[in-house]
């Protein structure tokens, strides 16, 4: 078993941490308060090559393997304190670009991937609906074929980047009689007639990435906007899950590492009863638990990446990793806050924000309950 990174991966990690620390952390308290998305930072990440990490070179990317992408996204999560931005980048990379890469026609790949990598356009993923959350394949959006066009009708909820997206992958039913196997996916430009976006939704965390509903009201698109074959919705949505889980979680892992270092530093500097608070066992134990969580979560995450790297199925491991790491991030966020006491409770400390940002992780991409269901199912229950 070899846990070491190559020289190139180590260099990439250092470069990304330096870039993120230098470029992405300004005005964060204010931007979080105002729920402001920074297009500037988005472009900087694109220019640095983050968005194109795993996209093939001929479409403007860097063609990284999954292990290297994990290194990159972990480094980004460590260096960039804006969890909203890292989440949004991951959302586009794994739930928009990757499906286009895997299922797109040559024309679709050429049309979208280079611009997405360069940050010239932004992509979103719309599958969740008001009545289809965890039960995502019970979605009601309909795509009716009319000659050489499809007419889309329905509403997509909780769409990350929805308000700023130029294109969205929309999942809709093309054949009701086939149930979930009648769901197809479409690439819908925001200029399509009948496409609109609700006002931005205020939310608890990840406030620097805007979220909204996408409303499709007789939205007319060409039949060539279909992504993949008819009825491939289930396959498209599951095909990117392992990458998505690995890399979004890698950024959370990076954030947990940073959080741990901050907590250690604070526990060494802050003095009460004439000694550093880190000398009190209750405080030290909390930090030890944070360390155990990040190390164990890392092992699970790297295993998923290693399995995928070796072309092995990783459904079970991906669910274990999603469940464990996202819950660890919440728990460690709470522990970090306790270590910082009242100071951590103040927004300006930037400690409480990590906790608010972590909560979304136990909901999006399948809640923790759903991950347990998947694990149980794959264990044959």
């Amino acid at each position, binding site marked *: 078993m070899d846990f070491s990174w190559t020289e190139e991966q180590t260099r990439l990690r250092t470069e990304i941490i330096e870039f993120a620390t230098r470029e992405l952390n300004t005005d964060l308290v204010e931007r979080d308060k105002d729920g402001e998305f920074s297009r500037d930072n988005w472009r900087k990440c694109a220019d640095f090559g983050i968005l194109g990490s795993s996209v093939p070179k001929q479409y403007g990317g860097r063609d990284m393997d999954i292990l290297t992408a994990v290194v990159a996204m972990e480094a980004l999560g460590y260096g960039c304190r804006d969890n909203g931005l890292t989440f949004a980048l991951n959302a586009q990379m794994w739930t928009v670009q990757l499906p286009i890469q895997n299922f797109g026609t040559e024309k679709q790949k050429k049309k979208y991937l280079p611009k997405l990598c360069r940050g010239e356009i932004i992509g979103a993923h719309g599958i969740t609906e008001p009545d289809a959350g965890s039960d995502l394949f019970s979605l009601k959006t309909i795509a009716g074929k009319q000659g050489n066009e499809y007419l889309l009708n329905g509403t997509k909820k909780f769409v990350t980047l929805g308000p700023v997206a130029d294109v969205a992958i929309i999942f809709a039913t093309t054949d009701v009689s086939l149930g979930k196997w009648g769901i197809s996916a479409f690439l819908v430009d925001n200029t399509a007639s009948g496409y609109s976006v609700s006002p931005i939704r205020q939310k608890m965390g990840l406030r620097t990435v805007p979220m909204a509903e996408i409303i499709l009201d007789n939205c007319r698109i060409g039949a060539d906007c279909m992504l993949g074959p008819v009825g491939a919705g289930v396959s498209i949505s599951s095909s990117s899950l392992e990458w998505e889980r690995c890399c979004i979680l890698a950024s959370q892992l990076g954030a947990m590492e940073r959080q741990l270092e901050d907590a250690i530093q604070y526990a060494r500097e802050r003095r009460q009863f004439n000694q550093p608070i880190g000398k009190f066992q209750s405080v030290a134990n909390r930090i030890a638990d944070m360390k155990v969580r990040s190390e164990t979560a890392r092992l699970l995450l790297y295993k998923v990446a290693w399995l995928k790297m070796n072309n092995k199925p990783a*459904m079970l491991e991906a669910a274990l990793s999603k469940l464990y790491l996202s819950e660890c991030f919440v728990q460690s966020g709470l522990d970090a806050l306790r270590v910082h006491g009242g100071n951590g409770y103040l927004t300006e400390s930037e400690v409480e924000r990590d906790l608010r940002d972590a909560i979304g992780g136990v909901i999006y991409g399948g809640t923790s309950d759903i991950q347990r269901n998947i694990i149980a199912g794959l264990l044959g229950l």
Partner: protein
Amino acid sequence: MLEAVKQILKSYITEELLYNFGTVEFDDNLLADDMIDSIGMMRLVGFVEEKFELKIPHEDLVIENFQSISVIAEYLAGRNLSLPEHVD
């Protein structure tokens, strides 16, 4: 050979996905009424890939190729499947 593949699939589905609580015939619709749910489908794909030593591309995971045991066997035959030696 097609018959052998069908039998292998039937045994796996009956024992592992239906827990011997139901029976499945070669032409039964596996996807109707969620006889096999999406997790079950992922397990089935994993099983097929391992047993027959092939990779099923994402775009092939559609109802036309997975609706019934017979359909899956035909699809596998179309992939020029040759049964690995240890499969009888």
